[in-house]
Each structure stands twice: as structure tokens, then as C-alpha cells.
């Protein structure tokens, strides 16, 4: 405290230093901030504006129509938003369940390996850096051999989830591994001394102390899964019989394949944003971190 006051006095004596000290952090973050504001916040603001208008992207002209686009998305006869949201939410649940049952065990297994851990980490991470279009095209043909999952309305969405899990398992595994490495080893030593078996160690040490990683992975999976698009666009185009019609695909079709529907597509995008927001807020509330052990 005293040091801080002394420092402030020095700064006040020298106005130039004060200015320098005051502005330097902002200058450091300015490029990233400018990009974020320009390409995220401004775009979002424009999108919100557009969603209340009948907007023609080509003409750049708009006509205020209030909540009509939202009303149409939710209640119109030819709106597929409710169906798409239902499909997407199912996809999200399956993805989150898949991540927890695939990536976490993989991380636990990988964490136990003494030699070659980095090799496995790299191998499992590779799908994450493989372009989505390439992966989708390969899986499109693989699913033709593996039981024709894409051909049936009851299995097509599951096929897309499998693809998503394969692509994201390694990435999430690395996140879990980082979380596991942060857990102090002496907790396990103490537990072993107390006679805890491996399941009890996982139940009472690993799982609680992975809570923050778990929340992060789940939130990111939810956000990513709600935006699923590439696999749908390449593999199923929303079919068969609209069983894989997801919100991002519906937005894309309306924004870029139908004349003058950019406002409607923007409204769909904001409805998706609201759905994701609600989902994430509930998640954060449920999984809110508590300090368990000192």
C-alpha cells in the first residue's frame, strides 16, 4: 500500500511518466481490442440492428419491421427454427455426454503413462488440427460402410456427433490432462495412506479438483456444438427428412441462399445466441466453483 502511494507520488511529479504508465497497458491491448471491437462487437451490433429490419444485403437497404423476424422464426408455418433448435440441443447433449465419457477417460489413461505420453497426446490431438471439411468428407464415406448411419433419420444425428467427438476428443483430453497435472500428488499419497482405492481417489480427489476444467470443457463444448455446421453442410444437408437440420445450417441457408432474408437470418442467429447464453448461465450456476481443499 505504502509502496503504491510512493509510486503514485513519483508519477504525479513527472507527468510524462504518469501518462506513459497510465496508457501503456492500453496501448499493449489496443490492437487486439481494436480487432475484437471491429470484427466481433461491431458485427454483433450490426447483426442485432439487421435482425429488426427487413434487410437486403445487396442493396444495403433496410426497413424497420420490429419483432417480425423473431415472430416468424418462432411461429411461422415455414420456419424450421424450432425443429432446428431441438435437433441442435440434442446434438449438444450427446456431444457433452460423449466428451465426458471419452475425453476424460482418455486423459486419465494418458496421465498414467510414464513413457510416451507426449506421443499419445500428439496422436489424439491430430484430428483437432485436421480441416473440418476434409474430416467430414472422409467420414461421409466411412459412414457409408459403417452401417449407413447417415441414411436413417434415427441415426444421422448420432453420426454427426461421432464425427464431432472424434474431432474434439484430443483437444478436450489435453485440457483435462492440464487439469489433472495441476492436482497435487500428495493428495493421492494421503488418500492411499488412508486406504482409498482408485475409484475413491477419483471420486473424492480427481473429480472435485477437475471441476473448473470440467466447467470450461463443458461450456466450450456446448458453445461449439450449438454452432455445428461444417459436418451438416458436407454430409447431410439437414437430411434425411430434416433430422439433422441444425440452427447454423438454417441460418446459412436463409442468409446466403434466399434473396433478402438477411434480417431473418440475423434474428435466427440472435435466438441461437440466447439459447446458448441460457444454457451456459445454467451450467455456470450448477457447476459454480467452490474451494474444496486448501
Amino acid at each position, binding site marked *: 500500500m505504502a509502496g503504491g502511494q510512493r509510486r503514485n507520488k513519483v508519477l504525479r511529479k513527472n507527468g510524462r511518466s504518469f501518462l506513459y504508465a497510465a496508457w501503456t497497458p492500453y496501448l499493449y491491448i489496443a490492437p487486439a481490442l481494436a480487432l475484437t471491437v471491429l470484427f466481433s462487437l461491431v458485427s454483433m451490433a450490426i447483426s442485432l440492428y439487421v435482425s429488426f429490419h427487413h434487410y437486403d444485403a*445487396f442493396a444495403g437497404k433496410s426497413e424497420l419491421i420490429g419483432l417480425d423476424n423473431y415472430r416468424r422464426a418462432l411461429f411461422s408455418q415455414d420456419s424450421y427454427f424450432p425443429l432446428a433448435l431441438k435437433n441442435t440441443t440434442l446434438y449438444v447433449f450427446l456431444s457433452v455426454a460423449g466428451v465426458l465419457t471419452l475425453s476424460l477417460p482418455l486423459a486419465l489413461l494418458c496421465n498414467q503413462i510414464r513413457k510416451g505420453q507426449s506421443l499419445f497426446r500428439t496422436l489424439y490431438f491430430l484430428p483437432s488440427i485436421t480441416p473440418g471439411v476434409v474430416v467430414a468428407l472422409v467420414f461421409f464415406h466411412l459412414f457409408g460402410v459403417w452401417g449407413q448411419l447417415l441414411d436413417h433419420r434415427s441415426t444421422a444425428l448420432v453420426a454427426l456427433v461421432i464425427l464431432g467427438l472424434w474431432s474434439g476428443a484430443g483437444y478436450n483430453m489435453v485440457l483435462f490432462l492440464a487439469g489433472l497435472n495441476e492436482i497435487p500428488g500428495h493428495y493421492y499419497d494421503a488418500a492411499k495412506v488412508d486406504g482409498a482405492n482408485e475409484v475413491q481417489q477419483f471420486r473424492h480427489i480427481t473429480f472435485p479438483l477437475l471441476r473448473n476444467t470440467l466447467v470450461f470443457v463443458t461450456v466450450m463444448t456446448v458453445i461449439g456444438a450449438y454452432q455445428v455446421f461444417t459436418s451438416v453442410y458436407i454430409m447431410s444437408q439437414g437430411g434425411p427428412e430434416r433430422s439433422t437440420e441444425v440452427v447454423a445450417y438454417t441460418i446459412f441457408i436463409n442468409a446466403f441462399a434466399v434473396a433478402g432474408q438477411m434480417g431473418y437470418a440475423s434474428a435466427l442467429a440472435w435466438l441461437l445466441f440466447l439459447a446458448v447464453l441460457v444454457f451456459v448461465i445454467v451450467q455456470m450456476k450448477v457447476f459454480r466453483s467452490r474451494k474444496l481443499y486448501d
Partner: protein
Amino acid sequence: MIYWTVDPRKGYGTKVIQRASLKKDSHGEPGARFCGLEKMGNDVKGSKKMVMVGWAMGCSLLFLTVVFRAGMTRDGMDKALSRVAGRQVRPIELRVWDWWSPAGNEEYGAYFEEVKAIFEERNPDIDVVYQFVPFGHYVQKLSTAMVGQRPPDVFQSSVYWAEGFYHRGMLRPLNDLLESQPGEGPTSLGESSFMESAWRHNHTGDGVVYGIPQIIDANCLLWNLDILEEEARKDEMIRDLFVRREDGQIDFDRIRFDGIRDWDHFREIVKRLTRFDERGQVKRAGFIIQAYGGGGGLFSPWLASNGGRYQDSEGREALFHLTEGVQAMTFLVELYWEDKVSFPFRRQLSGTELFVERKAACIAGGTWSGKDIARDTQGWTHMGKTAYPPGPMGKAPSTETWGNMLVISSSCLRVDAAWRYIQFVCGKEGNLLRSKHLGYNGPRLDFYETPAWEKSKEDRPYLSNVKEICLSGIKLRHTEIIASDHQANPIFETILLQYPDIREKKQPYESVRNALEQAAGQVNLVYSRYNLQKDRWLAARGETRS
């Protein structure tokens, strides 16, 4: 660089990465020394400088290359170099967009190269600059270019978008240019120079022409003549499909345009061509029916051959749910579910692959398919093409046709140059160049009178019926195709996939008619929104609907 050093504290050699100028070890203590490399110290410094100079030169070269070849500076640089070299600088730059791209097919490269060479030779004031935009991104890129005041001068427009582009005000009406050059001839671009079926998508109901046909395409049936020839030797009905030469001999390279009399005849033929294995599974399909994705594309030529239409000419109402459409859809689903002439529905099923593997006798293709198949099979051309045979309400073989066109953007400032380019490319000579390089038949009538076309038919007999097919077709659906397909195709898909349930009046639809009516209702919503949008565009330009 890697050197071996001796650490006096460790007493053994250690492999370290060390800068050549280092005289001390990594601990900053004297004693570490290069083993046998001291003499090379100065040489190493010299070579390091050389490496740095090399890097600097390489980076400079890369930078200059980028500056020279980058889109923003290339033109200026090229012109500057031309001036320095004393070459003539072309004052007019004509930017042409196309989705045909040399990147995907070297034949397109050869085609564009020759078009550019001939055109620029005849028009020394014009520099043609091609820009290739993928088909799937065309609308977005074009809209962005228009809004950004940097549209192409000329571009190829698919019939998928042409009508919408015009109503948005993106295309320049061409009537004044056409009227300025009346008459007939190889460069005449008037309506009378083209097949009627090519001159359908390029103008409004009140006669405003916004594009000149560059190609003519039509859906058609593709027949594997290897299979047909084999079957014809023992089956009179199949034998009768082939053309007979003047001496009465069968020409096994050519199928008759009107060989298939009607749907019943077609059904009988494809049933005879279908083969089953001992387990009753199809091992060779008489005809491939695909359920996934391409509903409208598969169904609408059959609808046309039954005298029906997908939509009205104004784009206000879907018509495919009427009796002609119900019959067409029922015919297709019964071919699949009752006659079992096709392989089971599979998303990965590729009709063309099965066709060239001789596992399918007939597939739905297009007049363009032959050249693609010949290229992909390295020269196999033993196939034939026919229009779709007439259904119970149809009068003659028919199909759907369309003519993608060259258009001039509404903000083009070099209209004269653009028109000269279109005259060349859409004229007789351009048609022949596309035939030569790309294997396309042309939309112009005079194209079919040339020796080059006769030679093409001799070399590739599968082209024999192409002109008749193109002439027989009706206009392809043309209003908001992607949006209407997004509404209707999943319902077509459901009919094909769940016909047995629909036939039993279970679910999800009471009947084929009921399903088609629901699809038409959805498509009508698309049309009504589009027409509202069209009124807005017209109102913005101070026009009203004619």
C-alpha cells in the same frame, strides 16, 4: 549450428547448439573450446554473413514477387513493365468472372487461354482479366463486389440466380445493344440465332433481355450401351432401342431418340435390364433412383415428360402437386419399391460410378455428362442419351432445359468492351471453342450446321441425340431454386423413403398427393416472400411489376 564442446567441469564432450561467435561455454566460464573447429571460426563468421545475405535476398525477392503479382498492384506493375519494354499498353481492362475454373480442370485453362488470345488479338485495346469464383460462393461474392463498387464487367450467370440478379438491379438490360446490331450472322446475338429452349431464362415476361445464352443444358437419361448391346443380342425389345443403319444393320453406338415409347415401356425395359443375385439383391440396376438430396432434380424431368410443370412462369405458384406431378412421383416410387429396379437408397450411392462400372444400365444425367464420364474413365464413351419418355398425360419425350448466360453488370462502365466480349464468346466461334475444349454443345442454331459438330458426333456418338433433347425440354424451375428446394426436397425425400407407409395411409403423409400438396404449400410461401422482395427492389428503382 551444432558443435562438440568439452566442459572442463564435466570432463566429457557435450553436444550443444552454440552460436559460432561464442568463445565461452554456456556457464560463461572460460575453458570450453571448440574441438578442432577453432580454425574454422572466421570461416563460420563469413558463412553466417553469407547466410544472412541469402535470407535477406530471398525475403526481398519474395516481397517483390508478392508486390508484382498481388491483385492490387499487378495491373500497375504489368503496365509499367509493358511501357519499359515498349509494348502496347491496353487501356481497357475487362474483368470477367466465371465458376468454370482452370484450377479444377485443365481443359478450362486451355479454353480460357484460347478465348483470351483470340479476343485480345482482335481487340488490342482490351485486356481480359479472368477471375474464378466457386459456384457455391458466387452469389455472396457478387453481392459483396456490387456493394463494394467493384463488380466484374461480364460474368457467367447460372439460371439459378439470373432472374434474381436482374430483379435486384445487378444486371444491365441488353435490349439496346441487341437492337444496335440487328440481323443474322455468326456474331448475331438476337433471339432468332438461338434454340428456343436456350432463350428462356434470359429475359423477363415483358421482353427485357439481361443475358445471352452461353451454353444449353438439359436433364436426360443416360444409357450404358455396353449393357444394352449385351442384352440386345437376346432381347428384341432392347434391340429395338438402337438406331439402324441404312443397310439394316444395328448401330450399337447410337440409341434412338424416340426408342422408349412411354413410361410403361421404360418400366419394362429397366426391369429386363435389372439383375438380382441368388439372395434376391439387386446386382445390376436397370435404373438408379436416389432419394437423398436431389429430390427436385430427380423428379422434375419426369414431371415435364408427363406434361406438368414445377412452377408457373411468373414464379407465384408451385404446380408440381397437380395430377401430372402425383403420377410422376408415384411412377418413381413404384419403380423403386415395387419393381425394385434400383439399388437400395444410400447417401453415398453415386449413379455415375455405378454406371461406368456397368452396375447400372440407365441413370438420370445431363447433356453435359458424356464429356465428364469420358474424362473420368479415360476415354470410355459407349453410352447413349435420350429425353424422358412421355407419361400418361405427356405427349412426347421431354425434359427440362436451361441456358446459363453471359451478363453485364449494371455498374459496368466499359459496356462496349463487354458487349464485344459477349459477341465473341456467345457467337458461333465461341460455341465452337467450347465444343473443342470442353465438349459442350452450343445453344446457337448455326452451331449445329458446322462440320465441327458433325465431326464431334462422329467421334462421340453419344452426342447424337443431344440437339433433340435440348429442343424437347421445357423451362427449368427458375424462381428461388435453392430456397424452394430447401422447402420441398425433404418432403420428396420422405415420399421416396417412406412410400410403403404412405401407401398404407399410415404416416407421415396420407398419400403422395397430400405430401406434394404440403410441399407445394411450403414452396408457395417462398414464392410469395420472393415476390414481396421483388416489389421492394422494383419500388426502390421507381418501377412497378409489369
